[in-house]
């Protein structure tokens, strides 16, 4: 962009024009947008993976000890009830104004959805399958890894998709502690009445959610090839 051009024709994101959709903004602030998107993606992925890592042992524990199940479900539901804008501040005294605060908060939300879907997935495995696997001499670990988990995968993946998509949306609230990925741009857009920034960041959030959902669907296809052959 030359100085002359800028003087003749104010860019679509100047204060005077303030368009919602503005490609000049996207190209001029490309680095800022890419950085925010990457931070968003990173926070989301780390949170969901952390949630999954905690959810698995919890779900297995809940299944083994039915008395613990209702307690685990009640506690996770309670956490889920707390709004994100309240959960992050409550974590700040322990983790400070860092990305860790956002990640732990989001992981707790993801955890609630994942524990339930893992439990439901394992419950959906037919009893006959378990019996025949035991009859074939499978131990407990083998039974879980080779028979139960593959069959529970569709339900678990459904939960993982729900958790991932909601985590992408909730990450924006992390802008309260300045680690909100695209949420930081949205917050700045509101404060400075910058429409192009606000609109671009909002659209990117939804695009990111849809993209991650598609990735998970493809991953599920790849992990459960037997569900594909049935149709052909």
């Amino acid at each position, binding site marked *: 962009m030359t100085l002359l051009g800028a003087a003749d024709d104010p860019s679509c994101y100047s204060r005077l024009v303030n368009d919602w959709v503005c490609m000049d903004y996207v190209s001029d602030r490309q680095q800022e947008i890419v950085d925010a998107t990457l931070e968003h993606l990173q926070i989301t992925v780390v949170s969901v993976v952390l949630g999954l890592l905690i959810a698995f042992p919890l779900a297995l524990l809940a299944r083994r000890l039915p008395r613990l199940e209702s307690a685990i479900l009640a506690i996770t539901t309670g956490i889920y009830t707390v709004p994100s804008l309240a959960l992050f501040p409550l974590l700040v005294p322990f983790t400070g104004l860092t990305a860790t605060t956002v990640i732990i908060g989001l992981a707790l939300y993801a955890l609630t959805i994942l524990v339930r879907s893992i439990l439901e997935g394992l419950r959906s495995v037919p009893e006959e399958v378990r019996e025949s696997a035991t009859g074939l001499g499978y131990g407990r670990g083998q039974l879980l890894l080779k028979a139960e988990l593959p069959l529970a995968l569709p339900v678990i993946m459904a939960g993982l998709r729900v958790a991932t998509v909601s985590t992408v949306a909730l990450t924006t609230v992390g802008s309260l502690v300045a680690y909100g990925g695209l949420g930081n741009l949205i917050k700045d*857009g509101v404060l400075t009445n910058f429409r192009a920034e606000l609109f671009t960041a909002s659209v990117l959030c*939804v695009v990111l959610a849809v993209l991650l959902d598609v990735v998970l669907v493809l991953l599920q296809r790849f992990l459960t090839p037997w569900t594909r052959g049935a149709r052909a």
Partner: protein
Amino acid sequence: MTVFGDMWAYLTEASNWTGGDGIAALLGQQLLLTVTALLMAMAVGLPVALWLGHLGRGGFLAINISNVGRAIPTFALLALLVVAPWPGTDELGPYGRAGLATLIALTLFALPPIITNSYVAMREVAPEVREAARGMGMTGVQQFWRVELPLGLPLVVSGLRLALVQVWATATIAALVAGPGLGQIITDGFFRSNYGKGIAGALVVAAVALVLELFAAMVQRAVDTTRRGTPAGGHTDALSVSGATVEPPAESLG
């Protein structure tokens, strides 16, 4: 950890609770917002979803609206509504600054769980029961009021419970875009580095959220006369992923 001391000091200071922007007034404002939005979403969503479920039409839309709702960040929608020329940040009576924008966002985010659960509730009534009702000579309207609605009620209420949690959370986030409600205490505390105040606000918001959830759970138990005594893990669970919120497996689509 001096923040806890600050938080306690803020919560125990009587003057922070009273007055136009005290905790009590903001709490009342947010409760009013929540109830209004929930009622509006019920008035719009329930009749449509229940009737579509009764007819068995529009299932794709009714199920997928929840997926769409989840993908849209509440913060982004609130921000767009506030920055847009309309509804903007105009005051709206007791709903406060940006009241209309907040109400619209809250209602929109309350709709998906209400619509999806109500639709599924109607569809999950066993076909034998439906046939028996028709065999007894019931008309479509009678079937709906006397058979399908009573049997589907627990799932409908669990959708309302999810919507309530969602609306309360969104109402809190409204403060991030200078909207009304208790979230103001949180954002004000954080933006002015008065963390004790921010955490105090968060504590109040979280406590009320838990009280609302307990209340909703009690209501749900009260209407759940049919499935009482069945073990946990049935469809009545509000957060359950399978059943109400999950789309059918891929192979049944093709």
